[in-house]
Structure formats: structure tokens, C-alpha cells
């Protein structure tokens, strides 16, 4: 019997809604996600050439340095610029503009939650491509030990804090203007994303001032680390990304959610095994239904790798859009083992 799974109790004539749901849950998820990511990558790296303008408040790395190609801006760039305003303006009339900007960013964000990371972010997609190349070459991947994981996991919060405090310091006059947009300067996306649109102008070290020298050197270093790190560690940069930390702090009211039914979980660890970010709670925590942890990128690989009906699911505004099923799991793993 190599064909379809005949699951007991399944009525022979299924209603259309059930058919659609079964098809969605049985999808070859990795392939689906790959093409979705390709689509978003094209939109966010080349969309500008087609005249698309999504504004400057996007909750993902639609890199501002990708001048012509970007269809909108990663919110971190304008945010850092706004926070660097003189305090009198920032805490005066301009404050309203800053708040509305944040509001727009927040509205974008709550639609997809951290799904922005797992499906949309071009830098995330590039890391997945590097992973695919490594896999093709038959190279194994590295994992952090638990202790290392713990030691590294606060870095994203530190970067987030610095990203907010340094511009505020500029506005107050304590810090040089050469330090503006400090995170952008060290973000690997600044060098890598424009390169995909043929723009290599960011691949320079700026000697014009000590601060710029320091930041652009650091940027070159992080980019080098990014390229090497991603070939040995899945989603290497996401672990340090301040946008990821920022997302997590705002994620409570998000519409798109990763939900776990602990009662159905056998703690087999299949989900942990496929998790690019090594999140243990996804397998071990059987109490908390809101299982999206701070490192999570909501890539939903865990849902696709869960063999228990309904133990993990992705919901949108309370409606289940994708859930773990026995049949879907078996289909996906059979394909993996036989191709």
C-alpha cells in the first residue's frame, strides 16, 4: 500500500471545507514555504523597481540601503533616525509623528507576528538558502549547547537596547552624530541585501571618522560572521536580531499565532529536532498554549514535523490555518525518506 492513507472514520464524501483543510495540512510544507519566501524576497528586494511603495514602517528587513529596489523601508532605520532628534523636538511636536510611525509599524507587525521573520525577511531567506547549499553539499550543521544558548540569548535584547539608547544619546548631545542608525551599520542586511540588487556600495569601511570607522568595521565583521555562521548554523543571525527581540516584546496582541495543545503532545521532540532556532519549549512545555518563544521565527516547520493531530497549530485571528496532522506528517516524511 503505497498510495493515500485511508484513515478510519473518514466519511467517503468530505465537504469542500474539509477537503481544503486536509489539502492545506498535508501540503509539502518546506516546498510551499520556499516558494513563498522566494515571492517575498522578490517583492522586498526588487519591488521598488516596479514602483511598489509600502511605506517606511515595515517590520522586516526591507533594507533601507537597497535604494532603488526596496518597496518600503525596514522600520528600524527611520526609528533610529527619529530617536536621534534633539530631545526638545522628540519630546515635543515631533513625538506625535514618532508615535504614529510606531503605530503603523505595530499594525503591520500584528498581522503576521514573527511570521515576518520566518516567511518574509529577506535576510532570513538568504540564510535558508545558505542552509540549502550546505545541505546539498552534505555538510552537517552545528548546534549550540544549552549553556551556550543561554549565554547568547540575551544579545538580541542588548542590541535592541543599544539601538534605542544610542540614538537617544545623539539627540541629547552625548553621542556623536556619526553614530546614527547604529544597528543598521552593523546589520549584515546593509551589505548583503543591496548586493542582490547589484549594489555593492556598502562593502566599504568608512575612514572619515573614528565612530564611522568603528561601525563600518563592525559591520564588515558581522557580515563576515553572518556568512560563515549561516553555513554551519541554521538561521544564525536570527538568534541575535534586535528586530526579533522587538517583535517578541510586542507579540501579545498579534493575530497570527503558534498554539500548542499540550494534552496531545507526546514530547517526542520531533518539533525541537527540526527547529532552526533550537527552541526547547516547543517540545517540552505542555502547559503553555501560547508557545511562541522569543527566538521563534514562526516558520511553522515544527507544525509540519508534528505527528500528533492538532497538537501544534497556526491560527489567524482565532481561526486555524495550518495544523499538525498524522496524515500530513506521514506524507511529508515518506517523501523525505524516498526522494
Amino acid at each position, binding site marked *: *500500500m503505497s498510495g493515500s492513507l485511508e484513515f478510519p472514520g473518514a466519511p467517503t464524501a468530505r465537504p469542500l471545507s474539509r477537503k481544503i483543510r486536509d489539502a492545506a495540512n498535508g501540503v509539502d510544507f518546506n516546498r510551499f514555504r520556499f516558494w513563498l519566501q522566494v515571492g517575498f524576497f522578490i517583492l522586498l528586494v526588487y519591488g521598488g523597481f516596479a514602483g511598489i511603495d509600502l511605506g517606511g514602517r515595515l517590520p522586516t528587513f526591507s533594507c533601507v540601503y537597497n535604494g532603488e529596489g526596496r518597496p518600503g523601508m525596514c522600520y528600524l532605520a527611520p526609528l533610529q533616525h527619529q530617536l536621534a532628534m534633539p530631545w526638545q523636538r522628540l519630546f515635543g511636536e515631533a513625538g506625535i509623528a514618532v508615535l504614529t510611525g510606531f503605530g503603523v509599524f505595530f499594525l503591520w507587525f500584528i498581522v503576521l507576528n514573527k511570521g515576518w521573520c520566518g516567511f518574509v525577511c529577506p535576510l532570513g531567506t538568504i540564510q535558508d538558502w545558505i542552509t540549502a547549499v550546505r545541505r546539498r553539499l552534505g555538510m552537517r550543521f552545528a548546534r549550540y549547547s544549552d549553556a551556550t544558548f543561554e549565554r547568547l540569548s540575551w544579545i538580541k535584547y542588548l542590541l535592541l537596547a543599544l539601538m534605542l539608547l544610542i540614538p537617544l544619546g545623539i539627540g541629547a548631545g552625548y553621542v556623536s552624530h556619526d553614530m546614527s542608525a547604529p544597528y543598521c551599520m552593523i546589520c549584515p542586511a546593509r551589505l548583503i541585501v543591496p548586493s542582490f540588487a547589484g549594489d555593492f556600495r556598502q562593502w566599504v569601511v568608512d575612514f572619515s571618522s573614528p565612530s564611522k570607522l568603528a561601525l563600518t568595521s563592525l559591520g564588515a565583521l558581522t557580515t563576515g560572521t553572518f556568512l560563515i555562521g549561516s553555513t554551519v548554523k541554521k538561521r544564525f543571525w536570527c538568534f541575535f536580531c534586535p528586530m526579533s527581540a522587538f517583535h517578541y516584546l510586542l507579540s501579545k496582541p498579534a493575530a497570527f499565532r503558534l498554539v500548542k495543545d499540550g*494534552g496531545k503532545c507526546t514530547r*517526542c521532540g520531533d518539533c525541537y529536532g527540526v527547529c532552526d532556532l533550537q527552541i526547547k519549549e516547543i517540545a517540552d512545555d505542555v502547559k503553555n498554549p501560547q508557545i511562541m518563544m522569543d527566538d521563534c521565527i514562526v516558520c511553522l516547520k515544527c507544525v509540519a514535523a508534528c*505527528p500528533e493531530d492538532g497538537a501544534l497549530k497556526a491560527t489567524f485571528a482565532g481561526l486555524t490555518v495550518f495544523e499538525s496532522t498524522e496524515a500530513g506528517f506521514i506524507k511529508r516524511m515518506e517523501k*523525505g525518506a*524516498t526522494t
Partner: protein
Amino acid sequence: MNGPFKPAKPILAAAAPAPASTVVAKSNEPLPFGKTKQAREAEKALNHIVDDFDDNPKAMAYFYDLFRRVYCRGESIERDGALIGTTCIQAPEELVYALGATPVRLCNGSYHYDQIGAEFMPAKSCSLVKATLGMLTSEDPVPRIGKMNLVVNPTTCDQKKKASALMQEMGHEVFDLELPNVKESEASRVYWRRSVREFAEALRKVTGKRLTRKNLKAALARTQRAEKAFRVMDGFRKASPSVFLGKDAFLVVNAYFFDDLDRWCEAVEMLNVELQQRHDTAVRAAQKKAPRIVFTGSPPIFPNLKLPLLIERAGGVVVSDETCSANRMLYDMTAVDEWLVNDMVDSLADKYLKPCTCPIFTKNDDRRRRLLELVSKFQADGVVYQAFAGCQVYEMEQRSVARTLNDAGIPMLYVETDYSPDDEGQLSTRVEAFLESIKTRKRMRQ
């Protein structure tokens, strides 16, 4: 061959036992196999399994026949490559298959061997371990699987751990597969993954073959097929009224211990086709009001299906189980992210450790949660908990499991027993009373 299909590999007859009727047993000659105590024990159990119930699925004939040939007639089983005996479910069989060898599970359910094995063990020991040792010390053990190249002994409970040295003394090559006592910690995961790699290395020495991406993937595909067939069969047990009885489910999975993998898969797939038909045509294997039981605890292994049989002969149905001779052995499936040797081996290692609800681990939260989930998924009315006398870990977990079930309002019957048939009368009274109380409860609720 009474089975509904041609087997991939025929079971070869061993040293052609003459038909019992033509043999006149002389006092100095060994009895023909069919007349031995163990063959009679198996025959009796099988007759109960087959004849005490009307309307067994036709596809079960393959399994009835298999057990009759192997246990009652002592026929031997053809094998591919090196033969690797395993004493617990934690030995990753995919590694064995990948290297062209065949695993066979040695856990034994025979009272005959239990008595022989008693010689090696203290008085209050687990029947299963005694029977396994009894079988391993025998000259020509049944099932007749042939000479083993290696026995893999996962370091699970104390009795199995200590059995390792005894098996070595009997002349078996034993590999101690080091299993941690705690499964939640990261240290245990790392330790276990390393143990599994050492197991692969030991297998390489025995088989002279190396693990490759190709052979491991192929092995995973083969066990996947078995797990899928099992899950489909298991799914039919959700039906109420039942279309399939627990005694048959136990027998099917028991056959997996020693049967050829592909032939077993074919037979279960045939069974699943028939179960689907039964389901569609509303054939009932039990009465509508039959109490639905989840079986947990020490594993029923043929011929010791005593307790499940007592339940089903008394009008109950074992709709699911949480035992290492059935559900726990085949239910969990491996997820692999990158189909490369390293990731496959690590994923396999995780599958054999993380979801395991064996009581040898320090905590048993997963076992208790699993029981609650099984009761709800299979709409069970109660739980029967079997502990082999001398199986300390199951005996010790009884209290916590009873408390959890009690808190959830699920009745549980705790039965301490062993392989001896002596307590059948007493047990049947207890089982009947338990089932009766469940029926009363159900009536009261309505």
C-alpha cells in the same frame, strides 16, 4: 499457508517435525516439538485467541498461522544478514536494517522459559526478564531465529541491566546500549545520541558495513511503512462500537518482534483494508455497550496474553494500550529535517528516548499524560494496569498513575500477576467485577 496472500519470504520448516500422530514417543527420545510443554502453552493461548471469539478478521489468519507455525510447531524463520537480538524497544532498529542486518526482539512471554530462567534470578523477579534469560540459555530457543551475532541490551531497568552479564555468561555477544535514567535533561539527550553512535559503530564491526545516507534513508522508509501501517490499524480502534479487538492488536504487534519486516507490513496493510470494510459496513467485534479499556503497565507478550484475553472474554474491549510490546513500540515516528546521516541518526536517537514512557525514568509525567490522552482519544471507560510481580518500576508507578486517573474520574484496575496460569480464576473474577462496575457507572450516567 492459510494467509490471504503469498509471503515475501516463506517460513522454512525446521528439521521437518513429523506429524504428531505418527510418532510413538519413546522414553529416551525427546518429545516431538508439538508435544512439549511450551508448544502446548502456546497452542492453548492461541486457541483462546482464535476460538473464544466469533468473527475474527479474515486477515488475522496470517498472524494466527504465523504463531502456530513458529510457536506450536517450532518452525524456524529465515533471516537476512547478521542477526541482532534486542532486549528492549530502545535499540534503534533502523541502524540494524541500514547495515543489512535483521533485528529480533528477545523479550519473551512464555511461562515455560520463565521457569527455566528462574534459575538465574532472585525469587521475586520479573517474569519477562526470567523468560528472556530462560529462552537465551536454551539450546534451540523458540522462536527459532537462529544464532545471533550480537545481543543489544539497552540499560533500562535494573533487572535487564544485570541480565547483561548473565547473557554474556551464556555465551552471547552483548552490547550494552547506554540509556540515561533521566530523559528531560539536555545532558541525557547528548549522552544518548553518543550511545546511539556507539551502537552504530558496534554494528559496523559486526556487519562490516558502513552507515550511508542511502542505506539509512532506505531503512527509515521501511520502518516508516511499518509505523504507518500500525497507526492506521490503531486508528480503527477508535471506532465505537469496536471493529477490532485488543487481543488481535497485541498479536499483530507481537509478530513484529520476529517476523520479516516487509511481510509483516503487507499483512497489516491487508488487515487494514479489511478493517476499513468492517468499519464501512458497521461490522462489530464487540457489543455496543462493551466497556472500553486502555491497557497499561508490564507488556503482554505471546503466549502471555492472559490479562487482555480475560478482559475481552469477559465482554470488555482493549481499545488502546500504553505498553512497550505494542503502542509504545510502533507509535512514535521519526521526523528528519535534513536527510543526511548525522541528522538522521540524531533524529532517530531522539525518537527512541524523548517520547518513551518507560517507568525506568525518574519522572513519569509523560506516561500519565499519555494515559489521559489515550483514554480521551479512544473514548475509554477505564484503565487496566498490569504489573508483573517483581517488576519494581511498574509497581512503584502504580500510585501516581492511580492518583492521576482518579483525579480525572477514570476507574483503574491494578493487577499484579506473572506468567503463571494459576491466578487466572481469581483474576477473571476481579476483571469481571471491574467491567461490571464500569457498566453500572455508564448506566447511572445515562
